[in-house]
């Protein structure tokens, strides 16, 4: 009820202020968190209202004196309206701009990416001031991508409407890709894991043992020479006289191996993802 009345009073004051002359001098713009001085013409007592994003204030003032608004009431960027009601009510508006960048919110996508993919890594940086206002003024953001000691990208982009972004290809080497967005001494770091691409040239070898045939791959790499991550499944298939045996074996320490149960002559093949390996023709035991 009290807030309803308060709102009613503010609305009435606004209406009256619009109808009367404006005798409040306010800066056209201010900076978030910084003090603002207002001069208000008149004499005697008056009621001061401040209405802004996330704030509304009311207190009694002496008209004709300079009024100082503390920085802590102007933390949020946006349009503010000042209304002073003596006889009559007067109003003025001013804009509070974000302060200088204090932190950078940095979103990088994806968190894992196969190597040698064009336009695969993208990032967006958004500078914020210390009061969490998005800095809309153009700010140069420096993007750096480094894999190990090698620098893959180093370029500066100006923010547009509060955002700067980049898009680039993944490198040819698997491993951690350090991605940094920086403005002066402020920076944000993210890590993108570059992983091997599809296996390439899957080579199989096999030998008979007491249990059947032990088949294993040579070290499995992608076409850029990166070892395919351990745990990747290699499907081995043995066909022996119309009878099929299969083993889905994970790569461990770079190799995948499986024990196939085949005593007679068998044709053994292997595949991982969309890649087929060579065929092995094993004679009967």
């Amino acid at each position, binding site marked *: 009820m009290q807030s309803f009345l308060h709102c009613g009073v503010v609305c009435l004051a606004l209406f009256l202020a619009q109808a009367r002359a404006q005798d409040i001098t306010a800066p056209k713009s201010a900076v978030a968190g910084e003090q603002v001085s207002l001069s208000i013409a008149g004499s005697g007592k008056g009621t001061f209202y401040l209405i802004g994003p996330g704030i509304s204030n009311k207190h009694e003032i002496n008209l004709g004196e300079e009024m100082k608004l503390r920085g802590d009431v102007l933390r949020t960027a946006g349009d503010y309206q000042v209304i002073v009601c003596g006889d009559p009510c007067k109003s003025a508006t001013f804009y509070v701009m974000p302060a200088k960048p204090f932190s950078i*919110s940095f979103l990088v996508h994806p968190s*894992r990416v196969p190597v040698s993919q064009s336009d695969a890594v993208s990032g967006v940086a958004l500078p914020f001031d210390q009061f969490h206002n998005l800095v809309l003024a153009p700010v140069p953001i420096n993007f750096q991508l480094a894999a190990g000691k090698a620098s893959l990208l180093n370029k500066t982009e100006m923010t547009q409407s509060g955002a700067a972004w980049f898009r680039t290809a993944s490198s040819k080497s698997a491993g951690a890709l350090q991605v940094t967005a920086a403005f002066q001494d402020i920076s*944000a770091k993210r890590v993108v894991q570059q992983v091997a691409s599809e296996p390439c040239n899957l080579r199989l070898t096999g030998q008979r043992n007491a249990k059947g045939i032990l088949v294993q791959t040579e070290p499995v790499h992608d076409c850029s020479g990166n070892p395919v991550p351990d745990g990747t499944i290699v499907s081995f298939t043995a066909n022996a006289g119309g009878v*099929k045996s299969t*083993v889905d074996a*994970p790569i461990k320490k770079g190799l995948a191996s499986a024990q196939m*149960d085949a005593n007679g002559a068998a044709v053994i093949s292997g595949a*991982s993802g969309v890649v087929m390996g060579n065929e092995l023709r094993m004679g009967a035991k």
Partner: protein
Amino acid sequence: MKFILPIVLVAVTAVLIAVALTTANATGKTVGISAGSAFLTAKPATPDQALSNLLLNAKRRNWDEAFNSVSNAQPVNKQSFIQDWTGSYGSLRAFSSLEGYDIRPLHITNDEAQMRVRLHWTTPVGPIEDVRDFRLAREGDIWKTLWPKSDMPNVPSQVIPVTYLRWDLVSGGSDDEWGAKNIDAPHVRIVSMNPLDFAEGAVVLGEVVNEDTIPAFVNVTATLVDGSGNAIDEETSFDKIDHILLPKQVTPYRIDFPKVNLKNVKNVRMNIKATLVPASADPVIGVMNQKVDPDYQGKAVLRGDLFNESGQTVNIPHVIASLYDNNGKVLWVADGYVERALLPQTSAPFTIEIPKNMASKVQNFHVVVNQYSVGRN
């Protein structure tokens, strides 16, 4: 005259009790008796009666009586006989109960008989039917079952070196800054989807591949949509899928829509959800000697042997198979549970039934093994 009615009632009651005790049939329910003898069993004067007595006692877990029905001619160990019925190593059989049985004679002479029994088990994964052949022999004026020697593998003590590989998941703290802990969900893809009408309703089946370099927990949901765009039904793949997919692994999936006619379906909306989960690359289970054969009833079945290549016991192996036509299209997805635990470095047979109308079209198949192991799932 006034005594006739009570006498008749007493006599009828006595007859009914005797009939109930001696002819307790195979599908009768035993309530409140987990072990021990509470009923009389008829003299095993015929092969059918002898086998009935054995199965009834096994069903009631009356092991002393059941083991007495077994011929001493075979070197059968009572413990292994009990394990045959109750399972071991946390296998599916260990969680199952014999619900009923149907006995059919195959061959009977004066001294020997061969009977085929269809055993109906209730299990945590639904009813399972098992067919076993029993041989019986006459000993004097009674018949006894020749219990086969247990084929439970005896694994010798050994050390099996395993390069153990697993993925752990580390979650960031709640105070991490925005954008700092965005680990993408695994990339999985539905590589095929085939809706078809089946006897009991509509079925959506196909295959899913994990294209990522990390393991994924996968679930596939299908929504059937009618001509007006309204959802008719929504179901998930439930246990007809290998939920944990390692990198580059392919699994079949099947989604059943009971009592839905595919003629009423205009569209199928597929939704696949993949979650990053901790997982292990072991155990590795090979599927050996796969072939399509007719079973004892002439039905086509896919059979083979599972071989546990690791050093861990797999308590409940679950086999899921994609069946392809000559164009490589997935015709059907069938599955089956293996009731026996798969001990390290041992094999266990499996069979999966192929629907009659598809048996002639099946040209190839892909079998994956899902596994449930105590303490690891």
